[in-house]
C-alpha cells in the first residue's frame, strides 16, 4: 500500500484508535477536519503528496461514519494526476464519497475517459472500476461506447476486458435506456467464443442482463451458450484455476443456464439435443458427497439445470428422471438438500404434468411432514397442497387432518385453510366434504378462520338443491354432537326418527366449538323451516337446541343467534304464541345490551317481528352469494411466501398465462382477480351449471347475458352473474358495445347488433324517465364533490368524492326509493384509458328504502379530458332500466390550486415557451361573463386566480398544480385576455411542463367556458361515451379536437372497461 511514508496519516489513525470513547474520537476527528480544511484553503496550494495524504485522511474519516462534505474537488482533481498512487486515491475516494448525482462527477468524466481510452492498463482498470461503482446516467451517456469498445477490443488483456464487461453490465442495469445495445447480438455471440473463462463469466453476466430485457435479439447467442455448457460440463475444458472442488467453473455454468432460461424455447433440434445431453450429464453426474463446499457448488449447478429442464418442457423421460433425482434428495438426511428437493418438486408441479411421477413419492413427502425442521415441514405442506388432485385428495386431506393435531400452532391456521380448500376443490361427494370440515372444526377449532365457515355458509346457501339443504340442515344440528361421522353412519343405518332421538341424547354433550355454533345457527335460521316436517325438528325444538348454547358463546356470536331466532320466529306458521313470547323476552333482554351490534339487532328484530306478515319480505331467505374466487384461496395465495427469486421462472409463468387467456392480464376494475377457475366446486348435482374447466367455454354465453335484458330464467341469470367477472375474457368483438353509444348514429345499425349479439340499451323503451337534467347534475358535480348524480322514480344515485393528489375515492350511494326491492342491480364502470378505477362489489338487490354505498377508487394516470362512464342497470318489476352516466372524475378534480407570486410566475412563464408546452388560442362564442364571475369560475375549477400579476385589469392569470401518476405534480399556468368591448371572445394561453397536459387543460377550459350555458347542451359533450339517455340524437357531435391519446377502441380493449362488480 502506498501508505508507508505518510506519517501524518498513520499518527492520525493511531490517535483515533487510542481514543477511549466516542466523544474523544469525535473531538479528534473534528480537529483533523479543521486542519484539513485549513490546508485545502491554503493559497499556496498543496504538493501532490500533501493532497494525497489529506484525501486519504478524509476517506478514513468518512469510513468512520462522519459527514465529510468538502474536499471533493481535491479528490476529483487527483484523478488526473499522472502517478499511480495519487490516481488511485483519487479514484477510490471519488467512488466512495460521491454518488451518481453529484455535479462534481461531470468534471471527472473527461479524465476518466482519457484513462479508459488510454494505453495504460492499470489506469484503465481503475477507471472502469469507478465507472462501474458509480454507474450514473452521465457516465453511461458519455462512457458507455468507450467501454463497449474496450470490451470487444482484441488488444486488451483479459483483465481489462473482464472489468469492461462488468462495468457495462452495471451501466446497463442502471440506465438501460441510455446504453445502446442495438446490434450487440453479434458482438455478444463473438464474446461467447472467448477462451478466457474470466472474460467469459463476466460476459455471461452481461448477457443475462441483456437477454432478460429482450431475448429476441440474442437468438444467435443461444447455440453459443450451449457450446459453453458443453465445453464446461462435457469436455471439462477448463484451466485448473477455474475448477472449484473438481467442478468446472460452477459460476459460469449456473449463469449460462440462467441465460438459457430467458429464451422461451429452443427450436433447433441439434442444439436442443446437445443441450439435453449436457443436462443429462449434469443430472446424472451429481451426487451427495461429504464436502460441504463441493456439495453447495454441485447442487447449485444441479438445481439450475433442473430449472432449465422444467423450463424447456423436456421429454417425459427426462422429467421423470428429474423427479427421481429429487425423490432421492427428499430421502437424504441433510436438511438443506431435503428442503431444496421439496421446493423444487413444488416448482415442478407448477410447470409440468409430472404429477403422476411425483405421486410415487407421496409417502416420502408425508414423512417430511413430521420433520423436525419447520421450514421443511412447510415445504412439504406446500408440495402436498400442490400435488393434490381428485385421485389422491382423500388420502392427502386425511393426512393433513391427522397432522393437524400434532402440528405446531404457527402452522395450524395455514394447515386448516389448506385442508379446507382441498376438501372444497376436490370433494368427490358432499358427505366427504361435510365430514372433513367437521373434523377440521373439531380438531382445530381455534385455528379455523372465519373465512372457512363463511365459505361453508356460502356453499350451502348457493346450493339450492333441496337435498343438499336437508343434509346441511341436519348436518347443522349434528354439529351439536361431537362427531358427524358417528351421526352419518346412524343416519344411513337407522330410520330418521332414530337419528332425532340420537340427537337428543347427544345434546348434553358439552364443549362444542364456537365456530360450530355459528355455522349451525346460521344454517338452522336459514333453512331450519325446511326440516319442519321431521320429528324433533319443530321450530320450538330447534329454538331450544340453539338457545341452550347462548350463555356459552362470545359477543360476536350472539348477533348471529339473534338473527336465527328472528328467522325461526318468522318461519313458525302458524305463529306459536309461547315461542313468540320466549323469543321476544330474549330480544327485550338484549335491547339494553352494551354491545351496539347486539342492541341494534335486538331492537330491530323486536320491532320487525311485531309487523306480522310484512316480516316475510324483510327476513326472506338470504340471496345467493355472488360466486367469486373463494376467499380461502385468495388468502392462501396471500400467505404463500413467494421465495421464487428466479425472474426466469416468473417470466415463464407469465408467458404461460398469457397464452392461456384470450385477452390480457390486466387487473379488472372491481378487484376480482382474473381467472376465477378455482372458485367453483365440483359437485355432482350442480356440475351442469358450474364446471371449473368450462369457464373459458362459458364465456360467450356469459357475454350475452351480461347486458341482455333477461327476465325469464332465474337460473340463467344466476349463471350470468356467476360468470360475469369472466366477461373480460370474451372475444374482443363484444367490446363494440360502448362504441355504439359513442356515436348515436350507429345505434340503429343492425349489423352491429347482430355481430355483437348485444341489444343496445337505447333501443329498449325506457319506461322510467329521470328526474332532473342529468347533464346539469353532471356539470354541477364537476365543480363540487358531493351531490346527486342521477334520480328517477325508483332510485337515486348520489356521489361523494374525496380527491388527494392523483388518487380519488368516490362513494356511490344507491338509494332505493321504493317499498319493494330493486333487483338485478348492476353497475359497470367504463373507465377511459387514463383513469384506473376499481369499484367495489355492488349488491344484486337493493332492499326497499335502503341505501347502498359502493366505494370507487380512482387513480389518474395521465392528463386527459375523457370521462368515465357508469353503466348502471336495475330491474323494477318487469322493467329493465339501464342508464349510462358520466362520472364526475374529470380533469379539474386532479388540480390543486396554488398561488404563485410574480417572482415565481414570470420565470416559469418564460421558460415554457412555444408549443407544445405553451399553447394559445382565441376562443369565440364564450358566454359573456363579468370578470369577477369568471375569476370565481376559475377558482371553482381549482385554478387559483392570482390577482395583480397581469397589469391589464381585463386579463386573468391563474395557476394550479396537476397530479397524475405519470406527470406527478405539474405546475400549470393560464392567462386569459378578455376584450372589454366583446365579451364573447377571449384569448387564452395555457402553459405547463407536459405537452399533453397543456393541450388537455386548454381544451378543458375552453369546453367549460364555451359550454357552461345549458342552452348548448350538446356543444360541450365530451367525445368520450356520451349520454345514452339524451332525449334526441344530436345532429352532429362536435368533431373531436385532436386525435386523443386514448381512442375509444383502446379503452374498450381495456378489460377493466368491461368489468364491473356485479350484484
Amino acid at each position: 500500500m502506498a501508505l508507508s511514508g505518510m506519517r501524518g496519516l498513520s499518527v492520525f489513525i493511531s490517535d483515533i484508535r487510542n481514543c477511549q470513547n466516542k466523544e474523544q474520537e469525535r473531538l479528534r476527528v473534528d480537529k483533523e477536519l479543521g486542519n484539513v480544511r485549513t490546508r485545502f484553503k491554503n493559497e499556496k496550494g498543496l504538493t501532490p503528496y500533501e493532497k494525497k495524504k489529506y484525501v486519504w485522511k478524509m476517506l478514513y474519516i468518512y469510513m468512520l461514519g462522519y459527514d465529510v462534505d468538502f474536499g471533493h474537488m481535491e479528490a476529483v482533481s487527483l484523478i488526473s494526476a499522472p502517478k499511480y498512487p495519487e490516481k488511485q486515491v483519487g479514484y477510490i475516494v471519488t467512488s466512495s464519497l460521491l454518488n451518481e448525482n453529484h455535479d462534481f462527477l461531470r468534471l471527472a468524466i473527461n479524465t476518466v475517459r482519457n484513462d479508459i481510452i488510454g494505453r495504460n492498463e492499470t489506469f484503465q482498470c481503475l477507471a472502469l472500476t469507478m465507472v462501474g461503482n458509480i454507474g450514473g446516467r452521465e457516465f453511461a451517456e458519455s462512457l458507455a461506447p468507450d467501454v463497449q469498445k474496450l470490451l470487444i477490443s482484441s488488444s486488451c488483456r483479459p483483465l481489462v476486458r473482464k472489468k469492461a464487461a462488468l462495468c457495462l453490465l452495471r451501466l446497463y442495469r442502471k440506465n438501460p435506456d441510455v446504453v445502446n445495445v442495438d446490434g450487440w447480438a453479434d458482438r455478444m455471440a463473438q464474446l461467447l467464443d472467448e477462451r478466457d473463462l474470466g472474460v467469459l463469466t463476466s460476459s455471461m453476466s452481461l448477457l443475462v442482463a441483456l437477454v432478460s430485457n429482450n431475448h429476441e435479439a440474442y437468438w444467435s447467442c443461444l447455440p453459443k451458450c450451449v457450446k459453453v455448457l458443453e465445453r464446461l460440463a462435457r469436455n471439462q475444458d477448463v484451466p485448473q484455476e477455474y475448477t472449484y472442488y473438481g467442478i468446472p467453473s460452477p459460476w459460469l455454468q449456473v449463469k449460462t443456464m440462467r441465460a438459457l432460461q430467458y429464451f422461451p424455447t429452443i427450436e433447433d433440434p441439434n442444439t436442443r439435443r446437445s443441450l439435453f445431453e449436457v443436462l443429462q450429464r449434469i443430472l446424472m453426474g451429481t451426487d451427495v458427497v461429504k464436502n460441504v463446499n463441493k456439495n453447495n457448488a454441485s447442487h447449485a449447478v444441479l438445481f439450475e439445470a433442473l430449472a432449465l429442464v422444467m423450463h424447456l418442457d423436456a421429454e417425459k423421460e427426462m422429467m421423470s428422471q428429474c423427479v427421481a433425482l429429487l425423490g432421492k434428495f427428499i430421502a437424504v438426511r441433510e436438511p438443506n438438500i431435503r428442503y431444496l428437493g421439496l421446493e423444487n418438486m413444488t416448482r415442478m408441479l407448477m410447470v409440468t404434468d409430472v404429477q403422476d411421477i411425483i405421486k410415487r413419492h407421496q409417502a416420502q413427502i408425508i414423512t417430511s411432514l413430521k420433520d423436525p425442521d419447520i421450514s421443511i415441514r412447510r415445504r412439504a405442506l406446500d408440495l402436498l397442497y400442490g400435488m393434490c388432485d381428485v385421485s389422491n385428495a382423500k388420502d392427502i386431506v386425511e393426512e393433513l387432518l391427522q397432522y393437524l393435531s400434532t402440528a405446531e400452532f404457527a402452522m395450524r391456521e395455514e394447515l386448516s385453510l389448506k385442508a379446507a380448500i382441498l376438501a372444497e376443490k376436490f370433494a368427490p361427494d358432499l358427505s366427504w366434504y361435510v365430514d372433513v370440515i367437521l373434523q377440521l372444526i373439531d380438531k382445530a377449532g381455534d385455528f379455523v378462520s372465519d373465512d372457512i365457515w363463511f365459505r361453508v355458509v356460502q356453499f350451502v346457501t348457493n346450493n339450492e338443491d333441496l337435498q343438499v339443504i336437508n343434509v346441511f340442515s341436519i348436518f347443522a344440528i349434528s354439529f351439536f354432537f361431537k362427531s358427524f361421522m358417528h351421526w352419518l353412519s346412524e343416519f344411513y343405518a337407522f330410520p330418521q326418527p332414530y337419528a332425532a332421538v340420537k340427537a337428543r341424547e347427544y345434546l348434553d354433550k358439552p364443549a362444542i366449538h364456537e365456530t360450530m355454533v355459528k355455522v349451525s345457527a346460521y344454517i338452522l335460521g336459514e333453512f331450519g323451516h325446511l326440516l319442519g316436517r321431521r320429528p324433533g325438528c319443530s321450530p320450538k325444538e330447534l329454538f331450544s337446541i340453539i338457545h341452550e348454547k347462548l350463555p356459552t358463546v362470545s359477543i360476536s356470536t350472539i348477533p348471529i343467534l339473534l338473527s336465527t331466532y328472528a328467522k325461526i320466529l318468522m318461519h313458525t306458521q302458524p305463529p306459536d304464541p309461547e315461542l313468540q313470547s320466549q323469543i321476544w323476552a330474549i330480544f327485550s333482554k338484549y335491547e339494553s345490551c352494551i354491545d351496539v351490534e347486539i342492541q341494534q339487532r335486538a331492537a330491530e328484530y323486536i320491532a320487525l317481528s311485531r309487523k306480522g306478515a310484512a316480516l316475510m319480505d324483510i327476513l326472506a331467505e338470504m340471496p345467493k352469494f355472488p360466486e367469486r374466487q373463494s376467499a380461502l384461496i385468495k388468502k392462501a395465495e396471500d400467505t404463500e411466501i413467494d421465495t421464487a427469486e428466479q425472474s426466469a421462472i416468473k417470466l415463464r409463468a407469465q408467458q404461460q398465462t398469457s397464452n392461456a387467456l384470450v385477452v390480457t392480464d390486466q387487473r379488472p376494475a372491481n378487484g376480482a382477480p382474473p381467472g376465477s377457475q378455482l372458485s367453483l366446486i365440483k359437485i355432482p348435482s350442480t356440475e351442469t351449471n358450474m364446471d371449473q374447466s368450462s369457464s373459458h367455454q362459458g364465456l360467450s354465453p356469459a357475454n350475452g347475458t351480461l347486458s341482455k335484458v333477461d327476465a325469464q330464467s332465474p337460473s340463467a341469470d344466476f349463471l350470468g352473474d356467476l360468470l360475469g367477472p369472466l366477461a373480460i375474457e370474451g372475444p374482443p368483438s363484444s367490446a363494440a358495445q360502448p362504441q355504439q353509444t359513442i356515436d348515436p348514429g350507429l345505434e340503429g345499425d343492425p349489423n352491429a347488433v347482430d355481430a355483437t349479439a348485444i341489444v343496445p340499451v337505447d333501443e329498449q323503451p325506457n319506461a322510467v324517465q329521470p328526474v332532473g337534467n342529468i347533464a346539469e347534475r353532471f356539470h354541477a358535480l364537476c365543480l363540487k364533490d358531493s351531490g346527486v348524480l342521477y334520480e328517477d322514480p325508483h332510485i337515486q344515485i348520489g356521489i361523494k368524492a374525496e380527491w388527494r393528489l392523483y388518487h380519488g375515492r368516490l362513494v356511490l350511494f344507491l338509494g332505493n326509493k321504493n317499498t319493494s326491492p330493486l333487483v338485478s342491480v348492476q353497475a359497470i364502470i367504463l373507465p377511459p384509458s387514463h383513469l384506473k378505477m376499481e369499484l367495489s362489489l355492488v349488491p344484486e338487490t337493493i332492499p326497499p328504502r335502503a341505501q347502498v354505498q359502493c366505494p370507487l377508487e380512482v387513480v389518474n394516470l395521465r392528463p386527459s379530458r375523457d370521462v368515465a362512464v357508469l353503466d348502471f342497470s336495475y330491474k323494477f318489476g318487469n322493467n329493465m332500466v339501464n342508464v349510462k352516466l358520466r362520472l364526475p372524475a374529470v380533469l379539474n378534480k386532479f388540480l390543486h390550486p396554488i398561488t404563485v407570486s410574480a417572482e415565481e410566475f414570470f420565470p416559469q412563464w418564460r421558460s415554457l415557451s412555444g408549443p407544445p408546452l405553451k399553447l394559445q388560442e382565441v376562443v369565440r362564442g364564450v358566454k359573456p361573463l363579468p370578470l369577477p364571475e369568471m375569476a370565481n369560475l376559475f377558482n371553482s375549477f381549482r385554478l387559483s386566480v392570482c390577482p395583480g400579476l397581469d397589469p391589464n385589469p381585463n386579463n386573468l392569470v391563474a395557476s394550479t398544480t396537476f397530479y397524475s401518476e405519470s406527470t406527478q405534480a405539474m405546475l400549470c399556468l393560464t392567462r386569459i385576455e378578455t376584450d372589454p368591448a366583446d365579451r364573447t371572445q377571449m384569448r387564452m394561453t395555457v402553459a405547463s411542463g407536459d405537452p399533453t397536459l397543456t393541450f388537455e387543460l386548454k381544451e378543458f377550459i375552453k369546453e367549460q367556458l364555451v359550454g357552461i350555458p345549458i342552452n348548448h347542451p350538446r356543444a360541450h359533450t365530451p367525445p368520450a361515451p356520451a349520454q345514452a339517455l339524451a332525449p334526441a340524437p344530436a345532429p352532429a357531435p362536435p368533431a373531436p379536437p385532436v386525435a386523443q391519446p386514448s381512442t375509444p377502441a383502446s379503452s374498450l380493449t381495456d378489460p377493466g372497461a368491461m368489468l364491473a362488480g356485479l350484484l
Partner: protein
Amino acid sequence: MPVAASAIYFLNLRGDVLINRLYRDDVGGNMVDAFRTHIMQTKELGTCPVRQIGGCSFFYMRISNVYIVIVVSSNANVACAFKFVVEAVALFKSYFGGAFDEDAIRNNFVLIYELLDEIMDFGYPQNLSPEILKLYITQEGVRSPFSSKPADKPVPNATLQVTGAVGWRREGLVYKKNEVFLDIVESVNLLMSSKGSVLRCDVTGKILMKCFLSGMPDLKLGLNDKIGLEKESQLKARPTKSGKTIELDDVTFHQCVNLTRFNSEKTVSFVPPDGEFELMKYRITEGVNLPFRVLPTIKELGRTRMEVNVKVKSVFGAKMFALGVVIKIPVPKQTAKTSFQVTSGRAKYNASIDCLVWKIRKFPGQTEPTMSAEVELISTMQEKKSWTRPPIQMEFQVPMFTASGLRVRFLKVWEKSGYNTVEWVRYITKAGSYEIRC
C-alpha cells in the same frame, strides 16, 4: 417513615457487583442480574432512573464510573431513596477524601460495609451526617482504655450526640483563633436576543460558610434582602433605609438554621456545624446586574467568507476586574481559515467545538475590548445547508461582585465565653449559561 431500599448494589460500568448490602430479605440475591440484562445492556440506561422489572423497582444513578442501584419490592418512597443515595455518596466522599469511584470503593471495602450498616436499618435511612458518623466510625485505631497510657482524648459520647438537640455539632470544640469565613457565590444565567433584549435571566446563589469556632456559638446573619429589612424596620419602628432591597426566591437553608426563629423574626440564626457547610441557597429573577454586555456583529460575505466583530463591555465598577473570561463565538462547520485582531487577550479557532475562542485572563471593569475576525469557509457539497447561528457563550468569574446586589449586613456571633471572632466575607459571581444570540 417509608421504606427506601431493600438492597443496595454498587456496580462498575461492566455490570460487576463491587459491593452490596441486603437490608430486607424480600428481594432475591439475583435481582441484580435483572438489572444487568434489562437495563444496563439496553439503550434504556440513562433514560429513566426508575424501572420496574419482575415486581421489583430499580432506582439507579451513575456517580463517576459506578452505578448505585437500589432494589425495592414494596411500595417505596422514591425521593427518599434517591436522597439517601446522594447523601451516602457525600458521606463516602468525606470519608475517602474527595473521590468516589470504583478504585475508592475497592480500597475501602471494610469501611463501606461499616457505613452501610450504620446509615440504613431494615430499609429505613438513618443518620447520614458525616460529622456525627465520624465520631464513632473512625479510620484510625482507637486506643484501648486498658492500655498503659491514658487516652489524650476522651471517647466522645456518641449516643448523646446522635439523640441530642444539636446533632450536627460536637461539644467541647476549642480553637485558639475563632474565625468565620462566609462566601456568597452566585452564577448568572442569561439568554439575550441578537437585538439586545433579555429573554431569560436569573441568578442562583449559595452562601458557603467555614466555621472555626469554639464551644456552642449562636450565629445571626443579616442580609440586605427584602423580608429581613422589612421585619427589622417593623420591629424597630423606623423606615427602611433607602437603597436596594433584594427579593430572594426559593430559599433553602441548612438544617442548622432555626426555622421557627426565621418564621417569626425573619432572621437567619443558627448553631453552625464545625467546618465547611452550605448555609443557604436562593434564586433571584428580578433586578439582576449583568456584569457583561456583548455586542456581536456577524456578517456573511458571500458563501466563503465571514466577518465577525465582537465588542464586550464590562459594566461593573472600574476598580473591580473579572478573571478567566472566555468568549466562544460559534462559526460554521466548514470554517477553514481564520485571522484575528484583538485589543486584549488572545483568540483562536477551535475546530473540535466549531467556535472562535477569545480568552481574556484579566478583564478590568468599565472597559470594552473588541475582537474582529475574518473567517474563510471551504465550499461544500450541500449548498443550501444554512447555518443555524448558535448563541455566543461566555464564561467568567467576577470577585467581590454580586449580580443580585446581595450584601451581608451583619454576622453576629454569641458564645457563653464571649470570645472575639474574626469574620471574613467574600463575594464572587460566575457565569452559568451566559448566552447571547447573534
